[in-house]
Each structure stands twice: as C-alpha cells, then as structure tokens.
C-alpha cells in the first residue's frame, strides 16, 4: 500500500507538470477528440504534446506490457492513474479502435512479431485502425460473409467489400474478417487479416447517415495483395477472434463510452433547467413520471455494470453478460435521447439556426438510433442471451 501511495504521489506530480491546461477542459466538440494516425490533424499544440507525453510513458494503454509500448501498470496502479486523471479532469489523450478493440485481441491471439510491430504504434497513436466485419446485405449475419482472401503462396489476394467500417476514410490499417476457405461451413472458413489501407486496390466511400454525418464507410477490395504474415491467429479461426473482439465492442457501446458516463448531465437536471419546478416537483408531471422511470433504470443499469465488473474481478464467470450490457445500455440511451427531445420540445427540432450548436440535439438523437443496430443488433443480443445464458432450444 505504501508503494501505491508513492505511485500516486509521483503520478500526481507528473500529471500536474505534463498535462497542459487546455487538456483539462471539458470536451466541447468532435475536434477536441484525438484519434491519432498518419494524417492526424491536431487541433492545438497542447493536444499534440499531451498525446506525445502520455504515449512516451505508455499511459495511453497503462496496463499493456512495456515491451509493446504500454505502461506496464498493474490493475491497482492503473486505477490510481485513472483517479488522478479524473482529479484534474484530464482528457483522454487518444481515442482509438486500436486500443479498444484490436489491441486486446492482438495481445491474446497475435504472434510476437505482430505484437511488436503493431501495439507500440497503437499506443503512441501513430497508426489509426478501422474494423472490417459487416458486409453489404449481411447485417448482423456475420457468418455469411463473402469477402475472399485467396491463398497465392506468399500472399492473400483479397476481393470483396465491407460496410459500416467506422472512419475507414481516415484509418491507416484495417483488421478484417475474410473467407480463406470457401469450402468450409459458414463459421469455419473465416480468418482474421490485418492490412494497410494504402494498399493498392483499397477504396472507401463514406455513407451519409440520417443524422447528416458520415462516420461510416463502405470499403472495397479489388485484388488487394496482403502478405501472409499479416494473418492473425490460425487460419479459419477468425470467428473466435471476432467473437472475442465483439465482446469488447459490445461493452464499449453498451457501457459508459457511447451511452456516456458520469460526465453527461442527467435527464432530470436538464428537465429541471428547461421546464422548471412547481411546488418542488417538475412542472410537467407526465414527463416527470417518464423521466423518473428512465432514471431509475439508468441507475440500476449503471449499478449492474458496476456489479458485473466486481463479479468479474472476484473471479465469477460473467462472459455471456456482455450481450445484456449491450442490449440494455443501448436501449436506455435511445430512451434518454427520446426524453431529451420531448423535454426540449420545439427547440429540439432545430436543424440549422443562427446560433452554433443548434441542431446538435436532433443529430445526437438520430445518431442514437444506431446504438441498437451497430455491434450486433438488440435482436441478436436477445438471441444470444436466450441461447447462451438461458439455454433455450433452437427453432
């Protein structure tokens, strides 16, 4: 414990000295989030400095081993770091699918050369990754994917296309599910391939969403040559890696990241500001009932995340519960956005107006509708719970 306290003191001092003042301000818009990559455009010198300093210490990925660019911290130390960052309201230096998704899979399934090659670049924000899972017309049905990787001796020849690749137009590399054995049954012929988006034959086309933004792309592969050493794990075992990785994604979407964590203002606080009180209760009693019901569920849900984490830490088996967190968390977030739209009334309908930020709520609301579709639809999560947790029979 004494060690931990001295670690805390050192950490606090280092953060005080190294975290630029600007990086201690709340995130205002998308530009404030740093995604790194070859073509990174830093919004400010402070943002650049903060990434470099944290990357150099490995604290963008505190628990990864030092030889792979990580901080080499144990769980307790990582918690101290997180607490100390929260204390000074330090921003996360780097947002990255490499950190959230590929990294954990690489650590588990990658070979030593792959780990040494890719993990440090992820940690320092040098390479930005995207994910190639879904295919046009396949939706949640990942097992029916058709993108082929033909074995050409020293390389694979990749043909096909992927859809819903987040920020593929901005990414440097892709981790991609491909079919290496066209004769094997559905799940079995799939492999997990890493390759450079700058390879010849790769092209991307952004998908415009109902919210007006284009965070996703369709990505096309036309005779893309990928070196054989870029295969991760065993050939035909891509499905296992994908499932492992999807679990991480589900936790991310269902969890505090995209449904927002403690930093968001509560629905009732927003309602109180906008609608006001009447005799100490919210002036709109029907909305109050709905808000209270929502907030109770949101609170019970966040306690459930806390409990699942605590149980996992205590060594209990919680693996199949990621579907629950994904399902319930995304449905709650949609409900939250619907309530905010109701609370804001006609003001929430604005798409474009004279002031900056008008239209943000409507866009966020529309964006939230995708929560229960991306990363496995709510229906797929319920199927998984029914089959894997409840062990109900197949149809």
């Amino acid at each position, binding site marked *: 414990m004494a060690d931990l306290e001295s670690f805390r003191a050192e950490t606090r001092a280092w953060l005080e000295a190294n975290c630029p003042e600007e990086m201690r301000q709340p995130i205002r818009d998308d530009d404030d989030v740093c995604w790194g990559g070859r073509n990174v455009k830093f919004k400010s010198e402070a943002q650049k400095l903060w990434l470099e300093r944290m990357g150099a210490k490995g604290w963008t990925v505190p628990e990864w081993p030092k030889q792979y660019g990580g901080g080499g911290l144990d769980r307790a130390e990582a918690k101290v770091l997180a607490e100390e960052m929260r204390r000074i309201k330090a921003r996360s230096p780097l947002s990255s699918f490499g950190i959230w998704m590929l990294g954990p899979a690489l650590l588990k399934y990658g070979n030593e050369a792959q780990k040494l090659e890719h993990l440090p670049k992820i940690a320092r924000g040098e390479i930005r990754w995207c994910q190639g899972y879904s295919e046009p017309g396949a939706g949640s049905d990942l097992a029916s994917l058709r993108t082929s990787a033909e074995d050409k001796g020293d390389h694979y020849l990749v043909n096909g296309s992927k859809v819903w690749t987040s920020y593929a137009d901005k990414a440097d590399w892709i981790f991609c599910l491909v079919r290496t054995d066209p004769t094997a049954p559905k799940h079995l012929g799939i492999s997990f391939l890493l390759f450079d988006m700058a390879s010849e034959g790769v092209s991307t086309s952004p998908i415009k969403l109902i919210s007006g933004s284009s965070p996703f792309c369709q990505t096309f592969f036309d005779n893309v040559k990928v070196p054989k050493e870029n295969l991760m794990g065993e050939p035909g075992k891509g499905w296992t890696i994908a499932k492992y990785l999807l679990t991480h994604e589900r936790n991310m979407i269902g969890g505090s990241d995209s449904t927002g964590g403690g930093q968001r203002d509560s629905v009732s606080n927003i309602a109180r500001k906008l609608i006001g009180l009447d005799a100490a209760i919210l002036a709109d009693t029907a909305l109050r009932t709905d808000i209270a019901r929502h907030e109770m569920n949101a609170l019970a849900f966040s306690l459930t995340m806390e409990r699942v984490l605590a149980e996992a830490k205590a060594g209990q088996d919680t693996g199949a519960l990621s579907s629950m967190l994904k399902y319930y968390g995304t449905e709650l977030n949609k409900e939250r956005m619907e309530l905010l739209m109701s609370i804001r*009334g*006609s003001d929430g309908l*604005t798409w474009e107006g004279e002031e900056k930020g008008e239209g943000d709520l409507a866009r966020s609301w529309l964006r939230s509708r995708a929560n229960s579709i991306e990363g496995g639809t709510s229906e797929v999560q319920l199927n998984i719970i029914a089959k894997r947790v409840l062990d109900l029979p197949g149809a």
Partner: protein
Amino acid sequence: MALVLTEDQQMIRDSAEGFFKDEAPVSQHRALRDAKDATGFSRDVWTRMAGMGFAGVLVPEAHGGADMGHVAAGIILEAMGKNLSAAPMLSTAVLGATALRAGTPEQQAKYLPLIAQGAHLLALAADEAARHKPSHVATTATPSGNGFRLNGVKGFVLDGHVADTLIVAARTDGETDDRAGITLFLVNPKADGVKIDRRSMVDSRNAAKVTLSDVQVDGADVLGNVGEGFAILEKMLDAGRACLAAEMLGVSGQAFATTVDYLKQREQFGQKIGSFQALQHRAAHLFCEIELARSATLKALQALDEGSDRAPMFVSLAKAKAGDVAILATNEGVQMHGGIGMTDEYDIGFFMKRARAAQETFGDSAFHGDRIARQLGY
C-alpha cells in the same frame, strides 16, 4: 355519425392519395431538402392543390371554398403524411381558414377566397414556450392610436418564413398564463418592427422565430373580440391537432407498409427476416396500434365536423395516440431495417424525422394526456 368514411369521403381519399403520390412524393421532399430550398415546398404544387379544392377544404362555398369539412381535411393530410408532401396545408388551409371563419365579414371576404385559391399564406405566431402551452402569452398588445402596439418574441411559427399574414396571439389584459386577455391580430410580416428568422427543422420544414418590436396594428386587424382570442386559438389548434394526427397516421401507415415489405424481402441467417416470430409479433402489435390511432383520428375529425362539446377531448386523444404510434412505427421501422435504415439513402429516416416534428407540434402526448385527464376531472 357512423365511424366510417362516407362514399364521398372515400372518393376524396382516392383522389388525394393519387394526387400526392404523383405530384408530391417522397422524392420531391428529398430534392427540396438536398437543394436547401428556401421555401421548403413547391409553390407550383400548392397552386395545384388549390385547384383540387384542398386549399379551400375548410373555406365556405360562399367564399369560393370546397367546404368539405374536417374529415376531408384529415384525409388530405393523411395522404400528405404518406408521401411526406410539404405544403402550407396545415398553416394556411387548416389553421388560417379556421381563424378567418371567426373573423368579421370584411376579414372573411378579404382572406378566405385568397386562401381557397392558394394565393395567400398564413402562419400562426402563438407559441412562446418550447413545450407547447397556448395560454403562455407574454407578448403584449398595448393600446396605441386607433389600434395596438405589439411587442414580444414568438418561436416555432410554422411557415412563418413565407407567410403573407401572421396571426399573432398577444396579451391585451391579464397575467402571462391566463386564458382571458389574449387577443389575436392579423399582422403583415412586412410591417415595421417585424423580424422573421427562418429556422430549418429536422424534418426539413421551416419554423420561424418572429420578433415583434413596437409593431403597430389597427383595430381592423383584430381577429374576434379583444381579450377573447383564446377560444379562437383553441379552435384553430384543435383543427390543427386533429389534422396533424391524420398526417401522423399517414406517416405511420407508410412507414409500416415499407417495413413490412422489407421484412418480406430481406434475408438473414438464410431466412426471410419476416419469418422471425419476435419481429412478427412486434409488427402485429404495431398493426393494432395503428388501427387504434386511425379510429381515434377519425372520431376527432368527425367530432369537429359535428361541433361536438367533446371534440377537444377526442382531438387530444387523437393527437396523443397518433403521435405515440408514429414514434413507435418509425422507430420500429428504422430498427427493423437495420443499418440501412440509418442511411440517408433510404426514406425510412425521413418518416422518423417527420413523426418527431409532428409529435412536438401543438402539444405532445404528455400535454394531451394531461389535457384529457383535466377534461375528465382528474
């Protein structure tokens, strides 16, 4: 009155459905949106709507209208909802005509024929709170010269950016939330002191912010009696709410039809997704909900035509039920479409946007649930 369309009304339905499908389909809505059209609708289509008698659906025959009643107006709006047709139907033909029918013979003679011809657009400038509350009028009308001087700010003035005349609710007496003391004025948007800021909305329609700074109106511009405008305002709003319910019914119906079609075509895991029982049950439930919304809406429109005392209750029922159902139908539509439902390329998202905007217009289901409860004494 039997709760069913008459043969005449069925004919109106058929011709309205044909008209909007041909003349103002969803693709036109998309094109206007993409062009960032400043008007937000096609004036040409509006002229042809007038030619069909739609603009004058609530205008007496004596003033050149078709005088077909509220059920017919709802039928037209439902067809517009199915096609997401944008036109100043609600603001001018429903709210405007309802308002002017309460006007003096001179006002009627001046405006009603123009409304029926599609030659004059009106807009209601009433809401001041983001959450609809029609008695919440802080805008003042103070005696001045032979009339009044208006000061205040109005939000969410639908079609305010193109209106030829604004109908402004202002307070000549009483406190901000009183029903008594509100007076309606016909205001020329080009008059001195009127400032109109257009805002485009999530559904690509327009609602202006109207700022009134010492705007001088004369006595002839008062609509109805001084201090008694709230009753007319409620009448306008109830006609508008019932027609919005009808429009949302069209939105729900079309979103549902599109979704059911998709369920029959799309395959996943080697099967048509429409064969999955969980989706079947949700679709079947939604079918029932839409049927309930249909009944409530027809009843509200009939009650308005009959001048029934219970019309406000049925109108609130229709607005609340059709609103909730439209939200459900479009949310389910997007979810069942999956990822492509989130893309701008597919139409289903447009229906979701329109459903939300219509839900927030003239009171959402929470507002109307409260209104019904008060009417029923609890």
